[in-house]
């Protein structure tokens, strides 16, 4: 822009017309002058006070609103946690299950004086050192019972006097025989009271009397006194229906993120180790293989499948090749799968017997050269052992990634899927 153009523009702007106000404008303006022009400091202060009060009210409202929201959220979150606690407290099956003595089985062979003989499966997650909090808080007696059993398991030598489920050392440890023997009637009543499901299941079986090496082993085998004859058919029906229903309930419980109870382990293994078909008569399977996650450990599986229970005795005898054994899960009963961890003698030979099981007139025997690696084991063995391992991870709340991998390798996809779902929900 040139100087001349700028000056011209300024001139035009400055020369804009100067209009004269219309007549009467001054009067109109003067008429609008308020009568009270006096500047009132009080009024100004009042206005300022009102303005300040208004701002204060707004600020207080905001603070109140934020506080209310915070407290509401806080209360809701507390209410949610309380509801969970109440739900756990009232979990119907959570109390009785830990009382079942069948989940922990003591060795048939007494530990050598001064030796340490831990009876936990090394390749499986250990049992939780303490029962779940909900159980412990509700049932102190149960907690005491659990403690007793743990101490019995971990005892270095001898038998603590207060542990009533520990057997007395036997003079002659061999042959080692496990049967579905019956405990005392008093024990039966006690067990019925706390484990009705298993009681119903096992009441259908006929018990064999005291060839059992210990009460604890007998309890581990789930042996109970025979029911009255009239009740047997009804009990058998209940037993047949119970596993599927229980597993669904357990599955739902797991999906909710709850820790399975001790008694659930058997049901989980029973579900996954169920036979593909039920035989018309009695079928007995006895198999030994390496553990799925630790090839140095050996497992023994005893499965008895029967369309109907006719009360036959089931007797399991451990052979010369076995140094020691302990039950992991299951019981010696029709339509059950029992798993044992076994330890061979250093001097064991392939032709020595590992175990023999006799059900009525059927006898199955396996020897050292019948031992499989886990990969070469039967599908049922793989399913049972993996299910047991997985159930232990649920109880100990440890990771099950290795089990999922193993299950996938063995094409046990239903177990792998369930384990993965549980891992995702954690």
């Amino acid at each position: 822009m040139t100087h001349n153009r700028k000056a011209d523009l300024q001139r035009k702007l400055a020369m804009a017309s100067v209009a004269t106000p219309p007549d009467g404008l001054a009067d109109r303006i003067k008429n609008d002058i308020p009568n009270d022009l006096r500047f009132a400091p009080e009024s100004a202060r009042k206005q300022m006070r009102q303005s300040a009060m208004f701002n204060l009210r707004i600020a207080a409202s905001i603070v109140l609103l934020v506080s209310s929201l915070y407290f509401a959220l806080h209360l809701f979150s507390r209410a949610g946690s309380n509801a969970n606690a109440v739900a756990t407290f009232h979990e119907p099956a959570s109390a009785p299950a830990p009382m079942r003595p069948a989940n922990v089985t003591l060795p048939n062979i007494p530990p050598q004086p001064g030796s340490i003989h831990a009876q936990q499966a090394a390749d499986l997650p250990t049992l939780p050192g303490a029962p779940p909090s909900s159980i412990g808080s509700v049932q102190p007696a149960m907690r005491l019972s659990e403690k007793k059993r743990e101490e019995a398991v971990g005892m270095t030598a001898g038998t603590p006097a207060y542990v009533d489920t520990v057997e007395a050392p036997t003079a002659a440890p061999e042959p080692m025989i496990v049967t579905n023997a019956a405990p005392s009637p008093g024990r039966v009543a006690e067990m019925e009271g706390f484990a009705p499901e298993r009681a119903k299941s096992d009441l259908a079986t006929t018990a064999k009397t005291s060839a059992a090496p210990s009460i604890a082993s007998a309890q581990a085998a789930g042996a109970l006194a025979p029911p009255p004859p009239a009740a047997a058919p009804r009990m058998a029906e209940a037993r047949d229906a119970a596993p599927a229903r229980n597993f669904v309930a357990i599955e739902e419980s797991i999906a909710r993120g709850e820790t399975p109870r001790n008694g659930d382990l058997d049901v989980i293994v029973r579900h996954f180790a169920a036979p593909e078909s039920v035989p018309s008569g009695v079928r007995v399977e006895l198999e030994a293989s390496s553990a799925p996650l630790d090839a140095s450990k050996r497992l023994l599986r005893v499965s008895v499948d029967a369309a109907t229970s006719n009360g036959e005795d089931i007797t399991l005898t451990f052979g010369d090749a076995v140094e020691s054994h302990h039950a992991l899960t299951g019981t010696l009963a029709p339509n059950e799968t029992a798993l044992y961890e076994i330890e061979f003698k250093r001097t064991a030979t392939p032709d020595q017997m590992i175990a023999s099981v006799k059900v009525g007139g059927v006898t199955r025997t396996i020897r050292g050269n019948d031992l499989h690696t886990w990969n070469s084991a039967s599908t049922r063995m793989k399913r049972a052992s993996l299910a047991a391992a997985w159930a232990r991870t649920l109880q100990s709340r440890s990771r099950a990634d290795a089990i999922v991998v193993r299950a996938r390798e063995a094409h046990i996809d239903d177990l792998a899927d369930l384990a993965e779902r549980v891992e995702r929900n954690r």
Partner: protein
Amino acid sequence: MIPAWNEESRLLAAVRGGDRSAAEELVDRTYSSVFASLFRLCGDRELAADLTQETYRKAWEALSGFSGGSQFFTWLYRIGYTTFLNHIRRPRLMKSLDDENAPELPDSAPSPEDVLSSSEESERLRNAVLTLSEDLRFTVTAHFWGGLAVKEIASIEGITTVAIRKRLHKAFTLLEEVLGAAVEEEGR
């Protein structure tokens, strides 16, 4: 025309003391300038008169907030300018300067030719000023049409006089462009 600073201060003090005649004297001394400024802004006598009246109404209401840091007219001009902007921003009366299809509002007031020495050029210039951005428009109108000094405008705007001069320079450049384009349009 504008009362001297001391005299203005005396009158304002009297008004605050409730002296109505002092308020009337302030009106007499300033309303012509306020009206002239508003007329230059809106180009309409009647509207300018109404806006002037509205400006004083607001001034009486806000008089307690006037600190006396500037001249009374400077303060009044700012009120008048805001009143004008509020008026043209009202949708029912606002006429877009860019929208050629906008309906023409009937104007009963005398045409600008009656009051402007060179009405067409003045009208074109006024329209060009009104197309400026807010800060430039206020600066130009306050300086040329309100008669405020650069220092006073800087005081009102809270910026330096250098910034005001830069604004004016930028406004001149833009006005020349707008006016040149308008002349070219008419030449075609």
